């Protein structure tokens, strides 16, 4: 493993690829994901696609909650803003997906920043409640503005095209999602090596102290909301165009809670944690369903029990992680790695 790495200056210490093998490791991982669609069937590719979208959304939420310490229960609604903004551009206005995707992100960032303004006066509990209000109001807006969003019926979105290629199946969409996910991860990892990212963390740790050190709280809190919502908007726009339909029920408070659960289980304040959490929470329902099929396949009334059980398991996991490992899967993985770092001579 990476024992015997001694950094001698700040630049080396802050490097993302910390030890000599890291570059190789990243290359192997990227190569693996590039080759993945050729190794497994379309079903697994679609699962990986959903995970990729969840990763983008979860990283966004973690930037806000985990790194800046501002609680948001409105992430699902911000995803909805991105999805609908992009959807209106591609489906109603007929614009290109490649303009609509960033524009959807920007629209979400705008709305997110707007709802972030209360964070100046409100902290903790109160902020959580304000973002919850944002969630309810945005949902209401989506349902009750049929001229723009077609109301509860939802919208059908066209598949994006690149050159002459239509991205309308799992495999082609896979590469789009992979590229954006890698971009999102790299951006987030680097964000926290910049002044802005460090300011976020200073605000989280003690906003009064941060303000004394010359950090403009207004600017950085609203920026955090905007960046986080931009990620949410991109995730929402991608999700909408991947599924081909969007409707208000995709962006309810349940989605907000699901994303919060991802970053809690994955690890607050850790980019890798958001990734682990997104994988875990996307795979969990699938595993539950497979298990149920295995044991009780064929029972007709089982579906609603499964849905309910899924919810209960989510809730239970959130509580258990909070009690026993508040820093989530990222910390658990870190501990495992630490153990093997000098193994078998660990003392």
């Amino acid at each position, binding site marked *: 493993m990476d024992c015997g790495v001694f950094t001698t200056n700040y630049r080396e210490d802050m490097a993302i690829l910390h030890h000599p093998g890291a570059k190789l490791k990243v290359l192997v991982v990227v190569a693996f994901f590039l080759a993945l669609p050729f190794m497994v069937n379309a079903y697994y590719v679609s699962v990986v696609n959903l995970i990729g979208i969840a990763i983008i959304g979860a990283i966004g939420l973690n930037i806000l909650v985990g790194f800046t310490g501002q609680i948001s229960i409105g992430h699902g609604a911000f995803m909805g803003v991105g999805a609908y903004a992009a959807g209106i551009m591609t489906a109603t206005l007929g614009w290109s997906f490649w303009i609509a995707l960033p524009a959807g992100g920007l629209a979400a960032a705008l709305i997110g920043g707007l709802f972030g303004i209360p964070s100046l006066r409100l902290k903790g509990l109160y902020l959580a409640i304000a973002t919850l209000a944002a969630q309810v109001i945005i949902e209401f807006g989506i349902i009750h503005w049929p001229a723009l969003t077609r109301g509860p019926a939802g919208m059908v979105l066209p598949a994006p095209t690149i050159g002459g290629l239509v991205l309308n199946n799992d495999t082609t969409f896979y590469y789009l999602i992979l590229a954006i996910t890698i971009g999102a991860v790299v951006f987030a990892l680097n964000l926290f090596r910049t002044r802005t990212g460090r300011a976020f963390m200073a605000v989280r740790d003690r906003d009064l102290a941060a303000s004394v050190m010359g950090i403009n709280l207004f600017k950085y809190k609203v920026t955090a909301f905007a960046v986080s919502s931009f990620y949410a908007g991109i995730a929402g726009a991608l999700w909408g165009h991947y599924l081909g339909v969007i409707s208000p029920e995709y962006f309810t408070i349940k989605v907000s809670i699901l994303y919060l659960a991802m970053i809690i289980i994955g690890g607050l304040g850790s980019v890798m944690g958001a990734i682990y959490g997104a994988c875990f929470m996307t795979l969990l329902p699938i595993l539950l369903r497979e298990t149920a099929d295995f044991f009780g396949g064929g029972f007709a009334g089982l579906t609603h*029990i499964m849905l309910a059980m899924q919810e209960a398991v989510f*809730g239970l996991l959130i509580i258990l992680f909070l009690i026993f490992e508040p820093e989530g899967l990222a910390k658990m993985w870190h501990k495992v790695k630490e153990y093997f770092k000098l193994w078998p001579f660990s003392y």
Partner: protein
Amino acid sequence: MTFFLQIIITGLVVGAVYALVAFGFVLIYKSSDVINFAQGEFLLVGAYVALSLVVFYQVPFLAAVALTLTMCVLLGVVVERLVLRPFIGERVISVIMATLGLSLLMRGIIQMIWGTETRVYPAIFPDAPVRLGEVVVSQVYLWSLGVALVLLAVFTVFFKYSSTGIVMRAAADDQAAAQSMGISVKRIIAITWAIAAVVAAIGGVLLGNINGVNPSLAYIGLMVLPVVILGGLDSVPGAIVGGFTIGLLESLAGGYLDPLFGGGVKEVVPFVVLLVVLMVRPYGLFGKEIIERV
């Protein structure tokens, strides 16, 4: 005019239930600084348990309610002990997520047991509507309003004069000071959760008698947030005033604005009020002004 009065009465009944649920919510917040996002699920548990006792086990209604409340006391204490105790002194986000997790867990279990379809209580209150001047009100409404008002009065007196009530107020005021006077704060918090579960369950039984029971009733758990913010998070009178205000507002919005916007205004108006209150006066009407300005 009749329409207006009808709306006012509906608003008062809904408001009374909000006040009850908000009351439990505020108690928990006061005694332990916890925002309980699972309050709606406590309401649901109460409604379903009482319903099952009445329908499946043929228990007389009042006995069923008594049994339900006993069970809710236990539930409140157990939940506090198992879920909330580890979070004393933890960060706000952990506590919020813990109660959100709790609400998912409880809703999941409730749906596994009772499913999602609406269940109706057998008629317990007489069917014949009562005439109040020109307004016709069904008896369930009047009973609900009456029960809620009596309960609120009882609890107000309880806090003012009973020794347990006084001890609870002391603990809410300053945990450390209360502890040093020989008060067991842990016991107080457990009692608080039990009371919160009980009032929520009563609210659930009342609402269940009016509209039937289904999982969407838990939405009240969210609707109670505008109530407590308006009244002030740490104020019991605030919860009552806020409950009736939001109930009336919601009912008025439902009656007059819903036809204009094609429905749904009813649900969103309280949250608009909530945002305005948070912007203008975050501590609410009667709350203590100790919010730390950033």
